[in-house]
């Protein structure tokens, strides 16, 4: 029997806890790394290394008490011997983790950003070039995080959703098949994407979160998010805006040669087995059983804007400019999000300029993501 790959999970939030617990319960060796200074996130599991995984609804995975092999703030300790490194982090945390970990990566490791968010793999690769030791490491991105769920206490995580068939792309894209061979030993249902541009564009957080936030900004601020984000907040008019963003995303994908899947269809693929149904974004999101407990953020200063705009929507806007595809609705949301939160998202974004690719033409960009620098 082939031994399951050993995993290092980077992150101390909801996704990281669920990932570590699930994979441990399935028989992998699992370590978890949180950065020094963020110990508060792992204080509940630092000593006995146990995460209790509870199940909500019908995600199709087993819960239980997972006893991790390592819980630490020491990157060297967490990474030693790991074959697959899963970065289960918000986009803005990818850079600090990359900088902390890159010196301790080992030849042959596969680093997977789940999700990548736009440019995650490219940013990681840039940091590896600058601060690594020339290690032969594969870098890949998943289009989205596999799990939906949350931490209910310092050592208990609830999982309500598990997405099958997520797409992964290596950076550069020519290494994708090779990387998938190993990754399918962790998540058998993974599928390939053509490049990290495709995985970036497949991230539906970009399509759904910010429009719902913008259209409920008053409700959020006035009641501190005292309503259900999808079930109450995603009304027909709100869903129309999200659908408009989705159309821009699909047009952009088409112009880059990707056959992206409309958001509604993706949601059915991910959550159909858990009872999600509907023919429109409104029907689907406002009745999806997976979202039954999801209350709205208590403030506008939440990753649904703070992450999804600079790491999703602004990059989409910048990619649209390179590809010659207009994105007026996406741009509208960026503008309003910036004013609502008093942040100039366009100057803080991980767009092509930030990645050192300002002025790159479309063909050169495609060559880069497919074949490398």
């Amino acid at each position: 029997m082939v031994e399951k790959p050993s995993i290092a999970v980077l992150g101390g939030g909801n996704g990281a806890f669920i990932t570590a617990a699930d994979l441990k319960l399935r028989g992998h060796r699992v370590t978890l790394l949180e950065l020094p200074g963020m110990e508060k996130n792992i204080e509940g599991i630092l000593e006995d290394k146990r995460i209790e995984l509870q199940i909500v609804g019908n995600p199709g995975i087993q819960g239980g008490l997972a006893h991790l092999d390592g819980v630490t703030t020491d990157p060297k300790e967490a990474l030693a011997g790991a074959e697959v490194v899963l970065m289960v982090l918000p986009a803005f945390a990818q850079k600090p983790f990359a900088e902390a970990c890159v010196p301790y990566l080992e030849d042959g490791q596969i680093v997977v950003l789940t999700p990548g968010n736009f440019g995650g793999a490219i940013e990681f690769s840039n940091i590896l070039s600058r601060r690594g030791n020339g290690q032969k490491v594969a870098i890949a991105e998943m289009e989205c995080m596999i799990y939906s769920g949350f931490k209910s206490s310092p050592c208990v995580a609830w999982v309500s959703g598990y997405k099958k068939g997520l797409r992964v792309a290596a950076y550069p894209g020519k290494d994708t098949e090779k990387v998938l061979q190993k990754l399918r030993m962790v998540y058998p249902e993974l599928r390939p994407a053509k490049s990290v541009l495709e995985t970036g564009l497949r991230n539906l957080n970009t399509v759904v979160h910010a429009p719902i936030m913008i259209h409920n900004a008053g409700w959020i601020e006035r009641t501190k998010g005292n309503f259900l984000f999808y079930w109450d907040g995603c009304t027909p008019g709100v869903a129309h805006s999200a659908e408009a963003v989705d159309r821009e995303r699909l047009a952009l994908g088409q112009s880059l040669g990707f056959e992206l899947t409309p958001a509604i269809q993706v949601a059915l693929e991910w959550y159909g087995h858990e009872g999600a149904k509907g023919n429109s974004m409104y029907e689907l999101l406002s009745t999806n059983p997976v979202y039954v407990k999801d209350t709205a953020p208590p403030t506008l200063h939440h990753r649904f804007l703070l992450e999804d705009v600079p790491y999703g929507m602004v990059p989409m806007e910048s990619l649209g400019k390179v590809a010659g595809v207009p994105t007026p609705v996406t741009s509208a949301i960026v503008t309003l999000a910036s004013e609502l939160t008093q942040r100039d998202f366009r100057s803080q974004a991980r767009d092509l300029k930030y990645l050192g690719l300002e002025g790159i033409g479309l063909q050169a960009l495609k060559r880069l993501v497919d074949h490398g620098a």
Partner: protein
Amino acid sequence: MTTVGKIRSVAILGAGHGGCAAAADLASRGYTVRLQARNAERLKPLRERGGIEARGVVQGFVPIATMTTDVAEAVDGADLIMLVVPSVAHEHYAQALAPLLTPDRPVFLNPGHTGGGLHFVRELRQAGYGKPVKTCETISLTYICRMEGPATVGIYTYTKKLGFAAFPGKHSAELHTLLKPLYPETVLRSSVLETALSNMNALFHPPGMLMNAGWIESTNGDFLFYNQGITEGVGRVVSAVDTERMAIAKGLGVPAISFMEAFHQAGLTTRAAVESGSVARACRESEPNKTIKSPSSLDHRYVHEDVGFGLVPMAALGRLAGVPTPTIDAIVHLTSQAVGVDYGRTGLTLEKMGLLAKTPGELAGFLQSGD
């Protein structure tokens, strides 16, 4: 018929809140009023009553001699034609009036909001009326009012310090003198461009609607629009729209005061709130607006009127002036998607205002002469 020095009879086109308020008010003060509405159902209760029951600054039953669906009947013999309809209806009425209008009969758009007169005149010309025309308008309705029953109107106050202008501008003084006895609280402004850019409804209704779309649709608007719906973040978007509006005014050489100043001057908020700079606070501390509930759906004039005939023409004027309007554009784009109406196309464009080929330099002359 010679130009009238004094108004004696008024054709009021539109029998909604404003039209009924105007009919009751002016008839009670001795003017001959002919009231017109497109919809016979709207007039039915009034016809049954023989008039309108007024409450507030006008009190009592006011008989209205003529109530009709026929525009020709309404304007026959009228010294003044008053349009008291949403801007979306200006086109219809321009077409209806084109065969009936004469150069001596002024048309008063109550209100004109943004670009009402410009639009009306252009539609008039498109419909074949080629003779001289005199129009005038107020920024917003001359009354704060509401229908309280099928034949009852509450007229809470006359709008104070209300901006008034004429198009063509050469008739400003004459028309203001003519209208002053009817509406003494109006203040003459430099042009319809100035009044166009003073439309405050267009500033805070669309952000309030757009950024509470979920709340509105999910609860049928079960919250207080100004008091609860205009939060700090939403207020910041209103401020951003206001900044763009003032930049457009500056770019076109037109006087403008900030939304907060105007809000305060209209008696609608406290001095302290204005000084704080927080639009959210100004709305919370707006006594007259305290109990106003949100619309129960996005299908409302706060969207159709204030975006299509408020923000869209403002942005169009911005383009004419070379002033970028990212926030206004963002609101127009997003509202169009949410509601499924392409306001950029169906709303009041430069072309519909008769300004398509105009440069900023040509604007002043056009506003003055109408040519």
